[in-house]
């Protein structure tokens, strides 16, 4: 089949799977509902926190990614993998880990009071932003790191031979790369933060930190006001698409053209830069890893409390994660274009609650939704992970298409030969990263399960919540550690698989 036809099918599936459920909810609601006065405030807060969170995530990711790009040290690979961990933790676990460090009785405040300094409070807008940066800095760092690594060695060699100053280096090579990468990273994180709700509320300290997603949750789960839920979710979807289009306009990156695949070291590694890089890496590692360490620390005693049902749930989660990963990558390949990336954003922009409710309404007349619990979860996970996969795959996929289009045409390669012998092998690195991220994300709970829950096929995140709901906080911490370990394991395995032995 022609690639264009495949792209259209893949895009239509995304649109169908997002607009379909919204439409189902609107039809069911039989009408529209006016927004309440509080909703405007929620909308404003949502925009402010999402903008700040995305801005700071990307801002701090730049020096961290640069440091990681030009330094080789023992454990660098492990650090890069571990840095991805916050992104894949269940929200509640990550929040508890974060508060163990930044909370009122957290490590940071204990250190401050030991030094006789005034205590800090994390609750407020700054807390929301810190938490979102905690979650998204790793993603931003990885996306930008990819951009740095994509600067061909030949260009770096040229820059070195010209003796470019750091400033000139920045202007000639790094700034153009960032101009093409950063807007996309900003957009993805902005859209993730748009639908944040539990983090925003908990770290925001109260109803000041009400987001649109909270209003949707209230409308669906509490008020059963589907009309209001539909209106709010369309607003959220609209905001996400605006962000996606704006990012697309801004990131008119040219790319760098190709170089031959030789490993070329960088020569701009002078003394001051080296010190600064070390500081940035250390800061990022501290900020991201200490809260994770508390999750591990608290989880270890709970591991022995886990019964067979938790391990079984872990098995289901792994199964779902692998299914989602395969589905997501198949979906992402034909969509790895600029238009495809904007369409893909719809997946995370749509409130999971509305998505779940709509799917339920659509499937219910045809089939018992409970029988489809795991496939639906896998499908939704794939849909939700799609924007990340596309963000990772698109730049390199486009570069490959552009650089080899003429050779492909001159040889007359068939679509299959192109895919198998050129596109997939050359995409191996980003594919591994995308697969790792999708698998890890799919281990986490993505919220649609509420209407599709199947008691015999529960997933691990549900068990974590189940244990907490039954006062078993210690066992829950153990299950969370198991979840963290499995997610990281999947992430590491795929990501590494993409790098090791790649002939690129």
């Amino acid at each position, binding site marked *: 089949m022609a690639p264009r036809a495949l792209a259209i099918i893949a895009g239509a599936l995304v649109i169908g799977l997002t607009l379909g459920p919204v439409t189902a909810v609107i039809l069911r609601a039989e009408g529209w509902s006016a927004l309440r006065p509080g909703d405007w405030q929620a909308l404003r807060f949502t925009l402010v926190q999402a903008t700040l969170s995305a801005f700071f995530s990307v801002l701090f990711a730049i020096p961290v990614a640069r440091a990681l790009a030009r330094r080789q040290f023992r454990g660098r690979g492990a650090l890069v993998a571990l840095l991805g961990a916050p992104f894949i933790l269940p929200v509640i676990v990550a929040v508890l880990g974060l508060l163990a460090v930044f909370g009122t009785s957290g490590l940071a405040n204990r250190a401050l009071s030991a030094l006789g300094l005034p205590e800090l409070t994390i609750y407020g807008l700054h807390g929301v932003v810190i938490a979102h940066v905690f979650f998204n800095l790793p993603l931003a760092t990885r996306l930008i790191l990819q951009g740095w690594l994509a600067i061909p060695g030949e260009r770096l060699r040229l820059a070195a031979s010209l003796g470019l100053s750091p400033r000139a280096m920045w202007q000639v090579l790094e700034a153009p790369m960032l101009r093409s990468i950063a807007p996309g990273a900003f957009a993805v994180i902005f859209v993730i933060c748009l639908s944040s709700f539990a983090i925003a509320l908990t770290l925001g300290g109260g109803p000041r930190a009400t987001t649109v997603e909270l209003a949707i949750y209230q409308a669906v789960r509490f008020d059963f006001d589907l009309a209001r839920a539909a209106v709010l979710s369309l607003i959220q979807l609209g905001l996400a698409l605006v962000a996606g289009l704006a990012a697309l306009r801004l990131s008119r990156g040219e790319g760098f053209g190709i170089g031959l695949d*030789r490993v070329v070291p960088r020569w701009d590694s002078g003394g001051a830069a080296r010190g600064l890089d070390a500081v940035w890496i250390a800061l990022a590692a501290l900020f991201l890893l200490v809260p994770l360490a508390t999750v591990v620390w608290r989880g270890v005693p709970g591991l022995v409390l886990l019964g067979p049902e938790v391990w079984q749930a872990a098995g289901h989660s792994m199964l779902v994660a692998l299914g989602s990963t395969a589905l997501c990558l198949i979906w992402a390949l034909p969509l790895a274009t600029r238009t495809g990336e904007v369409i893909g954003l719809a997946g995370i922009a749509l409130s999971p609650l509305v998505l779940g409710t709509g799917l339920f309404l659509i499937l219910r007349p045809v089939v018992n939704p409970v029988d489809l619990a795991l496939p639906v979860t896998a499908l939704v996970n794939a849909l939700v992970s799609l924007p990340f996969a596309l963000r990772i795959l698109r730049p390199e996929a486009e570069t490959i298409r552009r650089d080899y289009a003429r*050779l492909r045409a001159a*040889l007359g390669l068939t679509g299959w030969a192109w895919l198998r012998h050129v596109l997939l092998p050359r995409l191996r690195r980003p594919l591994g990263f995308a697969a790792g991220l999708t698998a890890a994300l799919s281990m986490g709970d993505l919220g649609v399960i509420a209407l599709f829950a199947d008691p015999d096929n529960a997933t691990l995140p549900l068990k974590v919540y189940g244990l907490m709901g039954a006062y078993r906080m210690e066992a829950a911490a153990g299950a969370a550690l198991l979840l963290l370990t499995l997610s990281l394991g999947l992430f590491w395995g795929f990501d590494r698989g993409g790098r090791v032995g790649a002939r690129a």
Partner: protein
Amino acid sequence: MLELDGLRWRAGDFALEAEMQIAPGDRVAVIGPSGAGKSTLLDLVAGFRSPEVGRVLWQGRDLGPLSPAARPVTILFQDNNLFPHLSIARNLGLAVRPDGRRPDAAQTGRIGDALARVGLSGFEDRLPGSLSGGQQSRAALARVLVQDRPVLLLDEPFAALGPALRAEMLDLVAEVTADTGALVLLVSHDPKDALRFAPQAIVVAEGRAHAPADTATLLDDPPPALRAYLGH
């Protein structure tokens, strides 16, 4: 016979017209100032660009409706002639089997012959990046050899090589195309290369590709458009 029949191409201020016939087996240099449209001319023949009006014909057949791969034409670019992640053998394999399947025994034999012809026997399993510049050019030449098309376009593929190596490559091209009887169009910046390689030359200048003329005569007594370029 390669025939450019009332060909015209235009993009913004840039225009190129061509009207000529070239016999099979001829070796023709394409010379002219930078930006005059030498590569554009090759792209029109290869099918990467479509003319506004006019036709490209081979042995009387209009190539217009054909995709680049379906034309009796193959081309060596300035770069990207090989996939860097695939071995030389695999690169040549894709040239004979564009559907990605393994070449059969006969085709494998042809690949071996082509590599032998360019002096790269035993390099089957090497990646392009591990070869020297000259060897990469030879591998690319082997790639067009296995494609075995009657028209070969060379869009400055050896520009990055030193003069001696470039001369060696041109001799090799002349030698192997003498065997296959292919028509060769060579874009070149160096009059010496043109003279060495091609008995005839097309001058591309001021929006026009002129019909082939004797290279030595052209260079000895260049038309005005070529004079400034040659520095006479």
